[in-house]
């Protein structure tokens, strides 16, 4: 179903087919780290800067318990408990509730290991904990959205339509109605024009004008459609 590759390229790829050996010491070192991670040790390196699902759950649980303890303490101390927020289990991070749909194809990531949980930042006091955590989750989501659209924007600037459309598609998959939806649509129109798909670009542009009649991206979008 696919044409054979150029023989010169096949020769190049032949050279890459052989898997280089790794030193036994390195293999054992990483295996030890995997064992530690799986067993709940601390050998694992922190692999994710954001709060993952289990981290969020751990944080929520600690917050809940601390909240309960504080509530009891305040109750016994005669402090006005009305002024203390009830402990609320935090919503899971976006990574938990909405796994990146851009890679639906790939194996579902099991929950992070306890080594990662062990590295979760300590929970602050109950009353103050919730707001920053929510802000952090929102910031992480927005950062991710921004990252994807940064790639798309740079690719449009370099007239690399394939990369731009991939980034736009990924954003659409992960954040169908994300905060940066407006900009995504604008970038998509520009990328569609780059690959010469004017009909789709114009359909999208009409929708864009309808949805965002006062958008700051209107002029860029219009310029992209100008022959």
């Amino acid at each position: 179903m696919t044409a054979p590759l150029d023989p010169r390229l096949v020769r190049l790829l032949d050279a890459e087919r052989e898997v280089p050996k790794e030193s036994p010491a390195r293999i054992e070192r990483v295996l030890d780290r995997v064992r530690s991670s799986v067993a709940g040790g601390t050998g694992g390196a922190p692999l994710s800067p954001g709060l993952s699902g289990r981290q969020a759950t751990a944080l929520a649980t600690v917050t809940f318990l601390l909240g309960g303890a504080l509530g009891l303490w305040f109750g016994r101390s005669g402090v006005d408990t009305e002024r203390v927020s009830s402990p609320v289990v935090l919503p899971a991070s976006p990574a938990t509730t909405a796994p990146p749909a851009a890679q639906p194809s790939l194996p579902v990531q099991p929950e992070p290991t306890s080594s990662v949980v062990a590295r979760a930042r300590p929970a602050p006091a109950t009353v103050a904990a919730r707001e920053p955590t929510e802000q952090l989750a929102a910031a992480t989501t927005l950062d991710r959205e921004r990252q994807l659209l940064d790639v798309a924007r740079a690719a449009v600037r370099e007239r690399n339509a394939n990369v731009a459309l991939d980034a736009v598609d990924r954003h659409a998959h992960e954040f169908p109605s994300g905060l940066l939806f407006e900009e995504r649509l604008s970038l998509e129109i520009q990328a569609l024009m780059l690959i010469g798909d004017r009909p789709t670009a114009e359909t999208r542009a009409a929708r864009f004008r309808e949805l965002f009649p006062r958008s700051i991206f209107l002029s860029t979008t219009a310029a992209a459609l100008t022959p």
Partner: protein
Amino acid sequence: MATEAIVGTDTRFESVFRSEFPYVSQSLRRLGVREGDIDDVAQEVFVSVHGKFGHYDARRPVRPWLFAFAVRAASNYRNRASVRREESLKAGAHEMSSTGSDESDKAHARRVVMAALQDIELDRRAVFIAHEIDGVSPDEIARQLSIAVGTVYTRLHRARAEFTKAVERIEQEKPS
């Protein structure tokens, strides 16, 4: 009985780890993970693999199964990296392609392949590596990556064109 089953699973897991760590590491390099980050990302891969090891169908080849985990981890890795870092990855790969004037033909070929791969977007690159380097059939790729076979062919087609173009560019940039 349950403990024996767990021990047995762990023994099999460690056996797979020892035999396939080099393959996973090399796959991660091909997928754009920097050398300094390989161990961390490989650890992430195998922790995931361990979590799913009970679901592994031993009648099927293990590498395509592991490769799917590697793709996911590489994707996460790239998502964590900033665009700047991504660019430096490419720059690094391009540098790799143009170093070592007295290296063997084979080593040179590997460097060119590795550099050219960095020019292919990750989803397409994964399909390209699985098919063109690992020799996995489109059906098996579709199964392991949970995508339609038609998508495999589409990605492969585009990846081949990108790879060809990248190799030409790298060969042109080669210092004379």
